[in-house]
């Protein structure tokens, strides 16, 4: 081939166009890679599958484009096992080269991946609720758009005292840090406002039967607080009914006790129960109306905690991406954008405190029947609740982390 002048100019022009365009144009051709660390096998799978469904929905609604850039989703299944969550995070980072991770689901998984996330400087939008990840040992690469274990329980305790006028209560929760932390937060606020926690029970996570715990339950109390996860709340309430306790003792519940995902299997026994969460499928805002209807159409049940979690995190992610004009490669700037972002989401406005944890609305909800199915109707809103409730962060952090034994239960009656 001989090179004539025309061919030379063509080639040079092509070369110049490759070299000359600003880097950002070429960068756009590369997709942003999002990793979802979820649980698709084992006892936590129902929540984990909801997480995936909602995130896929969010991306599909935007044609897999966020902030003008194409996104690709990589999903990993940790099985809820911490060591495997770590291997799977490595897989997402080292093989799939993700830019940002959403998840994991369970506290143990988040703690297992904590130092790896720091080492890789991987921006992570977590769903797991473990308190200390955004408190005494905060990870600079973390944000959490959902809540800590006790964030919603604080508000419910306030509601129990001020509106329901409860004075004496029992608490029962799964015997895992999530359950301990939730009960501890509830107890702290409840007792500081003059109430008394007279009984604490922590049945094992996989207890097949709540009979012995129901037999122990005091009946000279105003109510019992349920700090259950998964389907345990559902099983407890059903047995509570069978033992004839309905009407004798009131039930209030934490954020996963009567989630929409289990509510669909319940009947009259759940009616009237008050729970707290940062979300309800019945929330009256335009974003949620659209989301809840679309989710209901696809899954045939209402979105709950886990579905809303990834949907909220995705909205936060999109907003932060817009702030940095899609340039996720500058991790520090992107992380700053995440932490300073203010996003309107299906749960209401979301912003973050300096520890990376959400400041957002917490809702008190009541189980009601609507169109033939049970729903969590919002009856009161606590606006802009932080993980520290009304305490000063510095003073809050001086205390030990919430646990089985802290705050100490001084009013237990045997």
């Amino acid at each position, binding site marked *: 081939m001989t090179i004539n002048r025309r061919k030379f100019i063509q080639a040079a022009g092509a070369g110049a166009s490759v070299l000359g365009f600003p880097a950002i144009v070429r960068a756009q051709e590369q997709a942003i890679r999002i990793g979802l660390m979820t649980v698709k096998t084992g006892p936590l799978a129902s929540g984990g599958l909801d997480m995936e469904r909602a995130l896929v929905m969010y991306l599909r609604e935007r044609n897999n484009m966020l902030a003008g850039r194409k996104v690709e989703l990589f999903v*990993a299944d940790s099985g809820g096992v911490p*060591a495997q969550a*770590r291997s799977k995070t*490595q897989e997402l980072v080292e*093989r799939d080269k993700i830019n940002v991770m959403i998840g994991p689901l369970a506290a143990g998984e988040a703690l297992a991946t*904590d130092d790896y996330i720091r080492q890789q400087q991987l921006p992570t939008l977590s769903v797991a609720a473990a308190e200390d990840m955004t408190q005494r040992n905060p990870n600079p690469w973390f944000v959490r758009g959902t809540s800590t274990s006790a964030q919603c329980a604080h508000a419910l305790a306030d509601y129990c005292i001020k509106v329901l006028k409860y004075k004496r209560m029992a608490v029962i929760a799964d015997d895992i840090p999530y359950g301990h932390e939730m009960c501890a937060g509830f107890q702290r606020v409840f007792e500081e406002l003059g109430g008394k926690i007279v009984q604490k029970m922590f049945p094992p996570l996989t207890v097949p039967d709540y009979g012995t715990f129901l037999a122990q339950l005091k009946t000279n109390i105003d109510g019992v607080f349920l700090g259950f996860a998964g389907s345990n709340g559902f099983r407890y309430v059903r047995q509570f009914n069978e033992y004839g306790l309905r009407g004798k003792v009131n039930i209030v519940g934490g954020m996963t006790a009567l989630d929409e995902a289990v509510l669909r299997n319940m009947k009259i026994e759940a009616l009237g129960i008050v729970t707290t969460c940062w979300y309800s499928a019945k929330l009256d805002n335009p974003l949620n109306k659209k989301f809840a209807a679309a989710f209901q159409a696809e899954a045939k049940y209402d979105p709950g905690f886990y579905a809303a979690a990834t949907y909220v995190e995705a909205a936060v992610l999109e907003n932060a991406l817009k702030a940095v004009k899609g340039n996720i490669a500058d991790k520090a700037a992107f992380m700053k954008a995440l932490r300073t972002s203010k996003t309107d989401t299906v749960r209401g406005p979301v912003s973050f405190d300096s520890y990376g944890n959400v400041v957002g609305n917490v809702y008190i909800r009541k189980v009601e029947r609507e169109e033939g199915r049970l729903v969590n109707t919002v009856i009161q809103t606590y606006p802009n609740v932080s993980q520290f409730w009304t305490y000063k962060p510095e003073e809050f952090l001086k205390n030990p982390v919430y646990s089985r034994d802290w705050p100490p239960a001084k009013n237990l009656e045997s």
Partner: protein
Amino acid sequence: MKKIAALLLIIALLAWPFAVGEFYVNLVSQIFIAAIFAASLNLLVGYGGLPSLGHASFLGVAAYLSALISLRWGLDHSLSAPLALAGTTLMAGLFGLIALRATGLGFLMLTLALSQVLWGTANRWVALTEGDNGLRGLTRPQVFGLNLDDSTTFYFFALVVAAFSFWMIARLVASPFGAALQGTRDQARRMSTLGHNVWLIRWVAFVYAGFWGGVSGLLFVYYHKYIHPASLSLTNSAEAMLSVIAGGAGTLAGPAIGAAIILLLKNYVSAYVERWTMLLGFVFVAIVVFMPDGLVPGVKRLWARWSRR
């Protein structure tokens, strides 16, 4: 023929980190760890005829000890590693005293019970073990000034430890003691009449297996820099047992192959197949149906039949 195959394997293992990405390097590092763990269990199951469902105790306790010693006492790895191994071996001695009161199913139940006690302790003694939150903030040691945080360096570290472990286990199996151990497996009563102390032989094998289980535990905690009660759980013991059975109990290479299969299914195939646990089940059914004594003896038999033709 065998020498060529061995040489090829060595070259492949040495070249691996330079040929593939970080993820695959880490994947094989994890296979080394699982292989040591399975090989130590194989001493009991394969050579001693002692099916144990509590082997995770040794992995977990060594990992927890190493983590606790460095976290609570602030000791360096050069002290915490030997202390953790010594503690694990001591525990293996004690557990051996209890579990070896029985053989067969009784032994299985006793080892299971003992390991469940440890699992429960790790879950419930929150003040010591942080319970379900697990222990974090751990580090990898510096070996001869090499930084093990780098995945390739860790790969070679794990490779060296695994090679040494396998060599030590092979030495034991090939020794007169190994022959005696296999004797107690096949003809315990005859061994006894011949004047061998069957109980003592089993106990020594149990302690030795516990020690190497502890070694894999150290590697495990170095690799993950995190330890959770799940590593003491029955699932973990059962996975090692399955590796041994799938690969071929009573062979040296079997547990390594079995461990590799399980780890690949768990960490690699699971990215493509959602119901990978089901696939794991099918693989085991297939192995049991077509090669009931495990992959390594099964493939050997096929090879022999093929080469005779």
